[in-house]
């Protein structure tokens, strides 16, 4: 139990590391893309330089009308470059959106992998107790929200064991008997405690198995409460 939860934490830590590495890689890619995007788009001066070269290289381009036309050409180039600027911004916003999606996808993927691993471990383990709630008044114990009715003596035994577990103690049969009966541990019989444990296991185990494995369908009979694909005969 303790080993399992430790390795679960470990896998979560590895997952976190992978997520952080992935996210920083994505941000790095985004930064590189942004730099390339902003550095490579042509600016207004590219058009102006072309027009200027045209003007210088052609000696007969001297009339006022022709020069005015050249200026208009350069002006429209500048307007086009302003449009490109807005495009560049839109592209960048889209890039940021896409990156956010990518980050979310990677995070979810890693979470899914970790969760799957955990689920697989839980499946193989059978049942992992995540919560144990003892209700002494109703003589009921709740294991992972499964409700089990126990006898008064069995609840007593379970309570003693739960308290000992909270203090990280291990009780011998005699000690269990001593706590429940209120006598001194040296006067108690080891076998009496063992009997209490056996009764607790019997009732609780019986109910657990009937809840988890061997179901009783009213007025029809009994059935294994498992997927038929998982059954194999050796």
């Amino acid at each position: 139990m303790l080993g399992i939860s430790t390795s679960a934490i470990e896998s979560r830590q590895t997952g976190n590391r992978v997520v952080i590495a992935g996210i920083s890689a994505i941000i790095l890619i985004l930064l590189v893309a942004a730099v390339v995007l902003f550095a490579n788009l042509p600016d207004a001066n590219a058009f102006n330089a072309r027009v200027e070269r045209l003007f210088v290289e052609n000696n007969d381009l001297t009339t006022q009308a022709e020069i005015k036309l050249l200026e208009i050409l350069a002006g429209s180039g500048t307007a086009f470059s302003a449009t490109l600027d807005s495009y560049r911004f839109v592209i960048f916003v889209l890039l940021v959106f896409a990156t956010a999606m990518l980050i979310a996808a990677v995070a979810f993927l890693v979470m899914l992998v970790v969760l799957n691993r955990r689920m697989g471990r839980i499946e193989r383990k059978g049942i992992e107790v995540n919560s144990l709630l003892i209700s002494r008044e109703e003589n009921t114990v709740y294991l992972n929200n499964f409700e089990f009715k126990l006898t008064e003596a069995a609840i007593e035994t379970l309570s003693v064991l739960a308290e000992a577990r909270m203090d990280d103690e291990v009780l011998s049969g005699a000690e269990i008997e001593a706590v429940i009966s209120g006598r001194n541990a040296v006067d108690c019989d080891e076998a009496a405690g063992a009997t209490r444990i056996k009764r607790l296991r019997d009732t609780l185990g019986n109910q657990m198995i009937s809840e988890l494995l061997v179901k009783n369908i009213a007025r029809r009979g009994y059935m294994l409460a498992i997927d038929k694909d998982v059954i194999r005969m050796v």
Partner: protein
Amino acid sequence: MTRSILTLLLTVLIASGAQAACFADYKAKQDNPLHLHYGVAQIDGACSADAARAELQPRLAAAGWQLLNVVSVFDDAGLQERKDSAGDFYLRY
């Protein structure tokens, strides 16, 4: 003797007249936004394209224009045909 003096005088007159009437047509620009102009200007120094360039550059720069190139240098004879093209910039700088 008198004839030779007259000839000399005439030669000097023609030479000085030719030197006084030296013009250049050039192309210049302004940046942001781009403005271009073709103009004609009188050259006071030597009558060559290089000299005209050296002379026009500071003159145009003072008015906020950048000289692109000097197309040619010419005398009075070429002035009239370039007047229309130069427009506002005919003998302005």
